[in-house]
């Protein structure tokens, strides 16, 4: 029996790095779509609904509008998870002035849960976010940060809460 090596990601958050393993067996189509747009570089922003999470918005030709590949009940969030998240403009509420203009309504992003609490807070109890319908709201866990997670990476993410946007590059780790 041969074992296929897992595809890996390299995350570079303002000089602090971490690696992650793709869930190819679990969400193959999502993983492939994401693999094909790498590397992705942008200015990541800290979440304000979901606990310890950094968001990297996918812009321009990197934007992805993927279907819901994995059942939502299999998408429980844990520290280290990386999700693909899509939210249509019809679900946008309020002003999103902290986001760049492209994402003040439609949102396509990587959600990187760097610490606990992960996925708790308002996002866990927000009915408008639960249709999970293709083209409206899609969430898919597609990777996880390798353990142990580098403390420097986690603290760089945490510092974004106070210091603002942080440059983040997600690339293939080969």
């Amino acid at each position, binding site marked *: 029996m041969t074992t296929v090596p897992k595809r890996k990601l390299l995350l570079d958050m303002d000089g602090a790095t971490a690696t992650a393993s793709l869930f190819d067996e679990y969400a193959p189509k999502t993983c492939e779509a994401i693999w094909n747009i790498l590397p992705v570089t942008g200015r990541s*922003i*800290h*979440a*304000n*609904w*979901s*606990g*310890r*999470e950094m968001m990297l918005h996918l812009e321009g030709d990197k934007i992805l509008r993927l279907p819901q590949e994995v059942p939502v009940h299999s998408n429980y969030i844990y520290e280290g998870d990386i999700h693909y998240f899509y939210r249509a403009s019809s679900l946008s*509420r*309020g*002003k*999103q*002035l*902290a986001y760049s203009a492209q994402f003040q309504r439609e949102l396509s992003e990587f959600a990187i849960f760097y*610490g*606990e*609490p992960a996925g*708790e*807070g*308002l996002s*866990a*109890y*927000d009915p408008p976010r639960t249709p999970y319908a293709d083209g409206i709201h899609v969430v898919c866990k597609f990777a996880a940060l390798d353990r142990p997670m580098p403390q420097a990476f*986690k*603290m760089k993410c*945490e510092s974004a*809460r*106070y*210091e*603002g*946007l942080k440059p983040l590059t997600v690339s293939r780790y080969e």
Partner: protein
Amino acid sequence: MAQKLKLTLGNVEATIELRTEDAPESSKLLKSLLPLQQRARHSMENGREVYILLDPKTEVPDENQTIYQTVGDVLLYYKPSVFVEPDWTGYANQMPVLSWVYERDTAIMGTYGPIATNVVGTIIGGLEKLQTEAPRMRREGMGTMNLSLIE
């Protein structure tokens, strides 16, 4: 005559009217803590909420509480420390905070559901400035928040 507070966040200023009739004890408590000056923090779990930490010994009475917070509410409550610091501290699992809500799609949450919070005041002027300044700080870094009594 209603008592008012001056709130500054970074470069903008707003006015708060204390809810002295609905929340007399909370209003009295807040006035006793003034002036307050601290680096503001943005909520990572509740949506559009900005807050500062109060002295850990502060005892917040249960008064004028709701789980249905709305834009412009000024709140006193205990925030689970897991939402404040990276490491959950064994000796203190909640921290008293003063916060305010600047946009809808906000609800104050604990680790298991909504938290009832004291509504101690209402932002009656300058809200639109806060609605611009708070997102700017999310992008560029959090600045100082000041709160003082208008005599």
